[in-house]
Structure formats: structure tokens, C-alpha cells
């Protein structure tokens, strides 16, 4: 009897230890729908989410919204997702290092949000689709499978291009280059004054440069061919031209670029623009907030320009980074989640987001902007400039192949001379072909 008691108590203590490690419950049982929202705390801060959720709860008393927000939200929600506990709504874009959104796209694990576009914004007469600016949905970013279905909704949008110091250009009497020849001529002129023409924070930031360049060189169809891994696309003259231009540009890269192009030191490359040591760098509008406390040259003023056109008077594209909101296919409260997503596009929510400089792709919103933001968004007003949204198409994962790393990271080797342009082109062709075969 005593022995069995010992065994039972030991088993109970073991079980107790195990259950002590288990995750907490979902908190349901109050009769309310509990909507779990996970959001990335990006450059816009976290307060705007708390305010939007408060406003939503005020108009939807039957819904309780629990927010989880973090600068590394992927690390917070991934363990639970692996255990089958998915958040209902996630605000997280593509292009993050952890690539959670891309992974779920590859897995076809996102809910089809096309109905949200047709749904009326809660409390308003218009549908979400009516409110969105043209061209912001229906691209590979929002419709990753190239079908009519939208799986990620565009939450905020921002132009990404070449950032520079307007003050320095005014002081030197230099003009922002209108052609690539002018760009390289400026590189020579700047070199004489010990100023480099180009740098990048890390090679990953070259997406703001490369996507626009590919579209500039070969047009939108060529861009789509590259993004969808068309057979032999990297062996075409257009692809070679893009690599030629880039290789030439990288010859003018600041000598400190590669050494600082890592997670610890990337702001030092950004600082070289503020210090008038370098003229241009590819970046997004968040760089203004990121460097707001950094020292800067007298008369410094942020400027943003698209790449010079490849043909004089030709169309130019500006890479537009879009952060997304999506609903996992395995979410528990999908209907409530879709309604919440629709609410995020309401005038009420948009006003709160805009106060934190998080600009949503809603028609007319850019006209209400002020300061630097207004200047940046003006780039869309230029008649020859078009927004370019989206990136490489999703395929089934291919082990050991990361075409973005092949395209961007090789720039480090081109600058240091460890790889040639031919090797770069061959590696891109190889990676693209493998992804095409995987179903690009």
C-alpha cells in the first residue's frame, strides 16, 4: 500500500512538473469572442495599435482583442504556431529575416482575404477595395500565387529608393543625376572631393535598388519574368545590363561599406550619408526615424529619388515596401479576424496610424501628410515614376537556395573582388532555375 502511494505521488509530481510547463489556456469562456492579434513593433512604435484596438473594442463590445506586440514578433508566436495555436490576425510583412510570412505563403497556410476587399468597412459605406489606392493589391505581394485571390492585405506603404542629403547637393551645386551616365560622372566628381557615390546599410537593402532597376531595364513584363523565375531570364541582355550597371556602380561604393554591412554596424553605413562621406544609399522611409538622434552635417536634409532611368525620358520605378496584415488559415476566429482587418482601413483607424507616420494605402491619405513624409510621398506624383510592389514569387522551399541572398549578398563579393560578374550571373541563373523547377 505504502509502495503504491509512493509511486502515485511520484507520478503526480512528474505530471505536475509537465503540466506546469504547458502553455496557458486561451482565456475563453466569458461569452465574448477573443481575437488574438500579433503585430510587429516596427519604426512606428506600439501605441498606435493599443489605440486602434481600444477604438475597435468601443464599437464592437462583443469582441475582446488581445494584442501581442514585439520587435521580434516571429520569435514570440512561432513556438505556439508550431504547437497548433495560431493568432487570428498578424501584422507582419515580407522581407523579414525570419521570413515567417514567406514560409506560411509557401505552405499555403494563409486565409484567402479576397472577401475582405469586397466587405464594407465597419461603420462606413465604402468597401475596403474601394478605399485602397490603385495597384496596391493584385500583385505578387498580395496575391502571391498569381491567382485572383488576395492572401495578404497591404497595411502600410512607403517608397524605397536612393536616399541622399539634399543640403549637400545644394551646397555643392550638384544636381541629382537624371541618367546613369550622369550618375557615374557625379561619382568621379565626388571622388575628387573624397566623397563616395554609393553605399548600402547591409546587402539586403539592395532590394530597394534592384527591383526598380530590373523594371527600369526591361519593363514590367521583364520584372515579372525575373520574379517568377522564367527559364533563362538571367541570361538575357536585360539581366546582363542590370548586372553591368550594378557592377559599375559598386566600383564607386564607399570603402567602409562591406565591413559595416552587418547587423551590428549597418547604421555606420547610414551615418556616412549624414556625414557627407557618401552620396546615395538604398533605404526606406523608416531611416529618418532610425537616425533621428544621429549627428549630421550642417544643413542636412533628407532627400529621396528613384534610380536614374536607363533610357533617357524612360519610365522609372520606385520600389514600394508594403507591410502586410494576414490571417492564418488555422486561426480559430476567422470571421471576426476578417472584420477586424476590414476595420483597420476605416478612417478612424487610419487617422490613428497616420499620427505615428504609418501611412496606409488609402486613396487621398498622402495629401494630408506634412514635413519629410510629404516630400517622400511626392515621388509618386512625378509623371514618369511608377510604384513597384512585390518581390520574388513564392515557390515550394528549395533546400540551400535563397535567390535574394544570391542577388543581394554577392554585392559584397563584387566590391571586395572575391567574385566576378560572370559568377554572379551564373549563380543567379542556377538559383532561378532551381526555383522555377520547384514551381515558381
Amino acid at each position, binding site marked *: 500500500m505504502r509502495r503504491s502511494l509512493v509511486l502515485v505521488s511520484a507520478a503526480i509530481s512528474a505530471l505536475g512538473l509537465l503540466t506546469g510547463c504547458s502553455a496557458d489556456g486561451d482565456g475563453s469562456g466569458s461569452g465574448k469572442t477573443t481575437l488574438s492579434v500579433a503585430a510587429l513593433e516596427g519604426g512606428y512604435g506600439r501605441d498606435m495599435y493599443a489605440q486602434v484596438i481600444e477604438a475597435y473594442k468601443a464599437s464592437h463590445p462583443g469582441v475582446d482583442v488581445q494584442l501581442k506586440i514585439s520587435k521580434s514578433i516571429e520569435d514570440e508566436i512561432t513556438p505556439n504556431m508550431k504547437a497548433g495555436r495560431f493568432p487570428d490576425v498578424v501584422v507582419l510583412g515580407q522581407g523579414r529575416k525570419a521570413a515567417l510570412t514567406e514560409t506560411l505563403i509557401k505552405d499555403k497556410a494563409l486565409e484567402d482575404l479576397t472577401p475582405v476587399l469586397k466587405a464594407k468597412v465597419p461603420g462606413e459605406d465604402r468597401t475596403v477595395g474601394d478605399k485602397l489606392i490603385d495597384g496596391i493589391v493584385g500583385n505578387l505581394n498580395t496575391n502571391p500565387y498569381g491567382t485572383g485571390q488576395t492572401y495578404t492585405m497591404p497595411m502600410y506603404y512607403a517608397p524605397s529608393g536612393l536616399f541622399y542629403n539634399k543640403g549637400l547637393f545644394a551646397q555643392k551645386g550638384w544636381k541629382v543625376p537624371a541618367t546613369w551616365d550622369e550618375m557615374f560622372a557625379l561619382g568621379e566628381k565626388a571622388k575628387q572631393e573624397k566623397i563616395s557615390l554609393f553605399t548600402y546599410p547591409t546587402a539586403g537593402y539592395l532590394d530597394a535598388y534592384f527591383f526598380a532597376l530590373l523594371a527600369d531595364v526591361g519593363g514590367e513584363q521583364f520584372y515579372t519574368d525575373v520574379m517568377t523565375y522564367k527559364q533563362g531570364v538571367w541570361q538575357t541582355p536585360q539581366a546582363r545590363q542590370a548586372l553591368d550597371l550594378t557592377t559599375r556602380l559598386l566600383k564607386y561604393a564607399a570603402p567602409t561599406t562591406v565591413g559595416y554591412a*552587418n547587423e551590428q554596424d549597418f547604421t555606420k553605413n547610414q551615418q556616412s550619408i549624414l556625414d557627407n562621406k557618401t552620396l546615395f544609399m538604398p533605404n526606406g522611409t523608416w531611416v529618418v526615424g532610425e537616425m533621428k538622434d544621429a549627428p549630421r552635417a550642417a544643413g542636412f536634409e533628407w532627400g529621396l529619388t528613384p534610380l536614374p532611368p536607363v533610357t533617357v525620358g524612360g519610365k522609372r520605378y520606385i520600389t514600394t515596401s508594403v507591410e502586410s496584415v494576414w490571417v492564418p488559415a488555422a486561426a480559430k476566429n476567422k470571421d471576426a479576424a476578417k472584420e477586424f482587418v476590414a476595420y483597420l482601413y476605416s478612417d478612424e483607424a487610419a487617422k490613428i496610424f497616420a499620427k505615428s507616420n504609418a501611412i496606409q494605402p488609402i486613396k487621398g491619405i498622402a495629401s494630408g501628410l506634412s514635413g519629410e513624409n510629404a516630400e517622400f510621398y511626392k515621388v509618386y506624383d512625378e509623371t514618369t515614376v511608377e510604384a513597384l510592389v512585390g518581390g520574388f514569387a513564392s515557390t515550394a522551399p528549395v533546400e540551400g537556395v535563397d535567390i535574394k541572398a544570391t542577388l543581394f549578398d554577392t554585392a559584397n563579393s563584387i566590391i571586395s573582388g572575391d567574385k566576378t560578374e560572370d559568377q554572379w550571373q551564373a549563380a543567379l541563373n542556377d538559383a532561378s532555375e532551381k526555383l522555377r523547377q520547384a514551381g515558381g
Partner: protein
Amino acid sequence: MTESSPARRRGNGVFVLACLLPALVLFAVFMIVPTLNVFRMSLYTWSGFSPDMRFVGLGNFARLLDDAQFVRAFQNTVALLVVVTVVTMGTGLFLAAIMTRQRLRGRTVYRFVLYVPSVLSVVVIAAIFSAIFDQKNGLLNGTLRLLSLDGLQQIWLGDQQLVLWSVAIAMVWQSLGYYMVLYMSGMASIPEEIYEASALDGASAGRQFFAITLPLIWQNLRTTLTFFVMSAVNLSFVLVRAMTGGGPDGSSEVLLSYMYKQAYTNSSYGYGMAIGVAVFAFSFFVSLLVSRATRREPLQF
């Protein structure tokens, strides 16, 4: 003394088993099952989230052999292990012998200074070395400039031929003090009379080190060697992640950082687990090799 009955002995056994049970259950659930899972998942292509798992047998391992980036990461890991182990262990032993056998003034201060890096977080160490290796304002290039050796200045973290050795320097700095203190404690327990007797026979300090110190702490050295090799695999991952991210262009990638990239950013979880199995097998093989190569008849005093 009373002799315990078989029933009583059996009762004690049950009690011991019952006490061990919680730990055994936890060990099985959190160590054995996940390890077996890694082996199982390495046989699938799987992203880590989807219910869609495709069995590919040893396909992931076959791909590894063709993957130039994996081969490079493997070479980097082996190079780091060899260099960092030899330098850390050699320098650690040398310094421990000096601290123990020589009457150095300020010995405690030296010991403290050398031990401090061991208690620092690896991320702090990464930040310190990023500052030291800074190409413009770093301590290293600054010192070279001060000594008028401008020609020797380097872009330490941006040069593909140097970046791995820059990481190695940080690894040695982090580990050296810890192993030095371990060896000092082993050396301190060697009776002084042995050294006195050998000194009377005319043995030099170097001779004493190789004939007395080293053989008598040999078991200590064997254990720490295996332990160090294993911990160096982990340390290289954390330092690479924090200092270089594997760059520039994959030149400082090590096995675990490549595994992380494949499993968590390239949606190739099964492939990542295959790299995990390769790391497991490699670690096991290195431990075995170290154990075999250092096997000696234990000397006692």
C-alpha cells in the same frame, strides 16, 4: 549492523526509482524525444508549420553533399575548432603554469582580468569586438596607426579572408580565462614536493611542465578538451550571428548558423534538421577522436 532483508532492499529500490522518475520523465520528454524527432524530421521535406510533410529518406543528406554553402560552413567550423582549440588550450595551459608556478606580482589581478570575459554575455563580447575591429575607429587599427604600421590596417569584418579569424580571436578571448582557471585548480593540487625533488635533480621550469604538470593534469585536460570542442561549436554560432551574420557573402558561415538559416528563414525545416544530424554526428565523431587520441595510463600522486 543488521542485514537488510530482500523485501526491504526491493522497497529501497522502488523508493529510489520513484524519486528518479520525475527527472527521468522530464529527461525523456525534453531531451530524448526531441533528439529522436530531429533524426525523424531530417528524413522529410517540411517547412516547420504545414501539415504537409513529404518523406524523402536520405534525400536531404544527399543534397548536403552537393551544397557548396554547407561545405563552406563545414570547412569554417572545422577551421575554427582546430585553431581556437589549439590556441585556447595551449595558451590556457601556459598561463596557468605561469600563474601557479611563478611568483608573479599582481597574480590575482591577472587572473581576474583574464577570467572576466567568461562571465560576459556573448552578445556583449560581439559588441566589444565589433568596436575593436572597427575599420575606422577600432582599437586594432588605431593601435596599428599609432605604431606607424598603417600598411597592416585591415577591414577585419569585411575581408572574406580575415573575417573568420576575427571571429576566432573573439572566441579565444571569451574562453581563455575559464580554462586557465580550471587548469590552475588542477595544477594547484599537485604536491609541491614533486617539484622540489625535480628541482634538486636540476629540472628546468619547462622540463617540470612537460614531465610533471602535464602528465598529472592529463585527465583534467582530456575532459576539458572534449567539453571545449562541443561548446566551441555553439559559441561560434552565437558570435557569428551577432558579429557578422555569416557574411560577407557567407564567408563566416558556420554549421549551426547555416542550419538556422535553412530551418528558419529558408522554410526548409527538414533540411535544417539534416544539418542538425550532421552536426550531431560530427560532434560525436570529434569527441570520440579526442577521447581516443588523448587516452593515456592515468598517473596519480
